[in-house]
């Protein structure tokens, strides 16, 4: 590939011109509202630039709009942490399944219909009273899409990517999880094409619950390893 940093600088210069034009046509920006998230330094013309690229690619026959709609719908509505929660609930309820999950995750996840893009090769790591696992991708944003959907902004952010390997206990504390001194912390940096899922500990007091009752207790954050599963879900969807 011929691309260089110089190309990016040239493209950025072009974007600056487009941004000025975008200001004149601000009413056409369908992003709709101001940016309340300080991590989202989005120029006002992004919606226009993306729309322009999409039109070009449709006209050139390179993408089909209906396929783009289907992809957005898939990751907004069909694939998400509920999948991972279902896996964990099954593992808690069925010791034989749990064993398969820990020894051949691809096969065990396949039993529930989960696999494919960005989850082609999965590893499931188990939390115990003395071992706590957490997942990161320090180099980019690798994340197990089939079981967790697309990653939240904090997972892709510089603070999480930089600090989770050097100060995992400090990061966990910010999530409200204080680990005992004797616990072993294992951080899994997703540098290759393996994707990780944490099997959290089953909370005390859930012995009588069925698989269907267990699944809603399992949060996304517990599947990344930045939280433990609480006996009863405490509000919020995180």
């Amino acid at each position, binding site marked *: *590939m011929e691309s260089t940093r110089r190309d*990016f600088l040239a493209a950025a210069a072009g974007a600056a011109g487009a941004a000025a034009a975008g200001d004149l046509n601000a009413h056409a920006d369908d992003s709709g509202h101001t940016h309340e998230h300080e991590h989202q330094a989005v120029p006002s013309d992004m919606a226009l630039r993306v729309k322009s690229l999409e039109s070009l690619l449709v006209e050139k026959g390179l993408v*089909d709009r209906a396929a783009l709609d289907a992809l957005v719908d898939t990751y907004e509505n069909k694939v998400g942490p509920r999948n991972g929660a279902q896996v964990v609930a099954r593992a808690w309820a069925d010791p034989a399944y749990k064993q398969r999950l820990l020894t051949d995750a691809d096969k065990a996840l396949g039993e529930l219909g989960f696999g494919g893009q960005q989850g082609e090769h999965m590893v499931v790591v188990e939390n115990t009273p003395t071992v706590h696992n957490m997942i990161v991708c320090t180099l980019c944003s690798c994340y197990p899409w089939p079981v967790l959907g697309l990653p939240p902004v*904090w997972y892709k952010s510089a603070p999480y990517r930089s600090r989770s390997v050097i100060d995992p206990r400090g990061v966990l504390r910010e999530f409200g999880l204080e680990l005992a001194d004797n616990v072993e912390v294992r951080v899994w940096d*997703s540098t290759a094409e*393996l994707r990780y899922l944490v099997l959290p500990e089953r909370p005390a007091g859930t012995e009588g619950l069925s698989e269907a009752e267990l699944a809603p207790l399992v949060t996304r954050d517990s599947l990344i390893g930045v939280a433990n599963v609480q006996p009863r879900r405490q509000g*919020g969807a995180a």
Partner: protein
Amino acid sequence: MNGVHDMGGMQDMGPVREEKNEPVFHHPWEGRVFATYIATGAWRKWNIDAARYMRELIPPADYLRMSYYEKWYAGLVELLVGRGLVARAEVESGKPAPGSSKATPPLTAEQVPTARHRGASTSRDVAVAARFKTGQAVRARVINPVGHTRLPRYARGKLGAIHLDHGVFVFPDTNALFQGEKPQHVYSVRFAARELWGDAAKPQDAVYIDLWEDYLEPA
């Protein structure tokens, strides 16, 4: 490349901020960038390593400033132009060049579920001997390639042990540059936190990193 994307171990990036009830996409255009990247990937004009490399080439100050999907947009444009699917002038005008041919057929909505379930494995079923065994002491090599690499800086020169052998996978350093797949074993390597960060770390803590054989040497 020792770029700013290689963030492991950096400090002073601020606290991790979790957004309650976060949407999958914060703006409609983010979803369109994501979907366009996936849909154009179906033409198989590039691979995941090349896509990552394009984002890594974003100048460092921009990389830190831009939102996630802005980086994806920038990387996607470079892939589309660099691999000849569109011309840069077309991206700037938003119109196909006069007389340019129309590609067919693109990924259809009906193919989306199948393509997702199939995925795009970079594992290769080829007989390549493994140089290292489970439990063996290894050292991450001290290398500073100027292209794409998946050996993070914080691990280079550090002593670890083979936790397990994941099998044979495409090598990102060459694949990102379309210089061949060079399939080789990938290992999960356990590095003690103290080896990486010194005595302030707890003695039992560890970081596990998936590393290609070319990144490792016997210790």
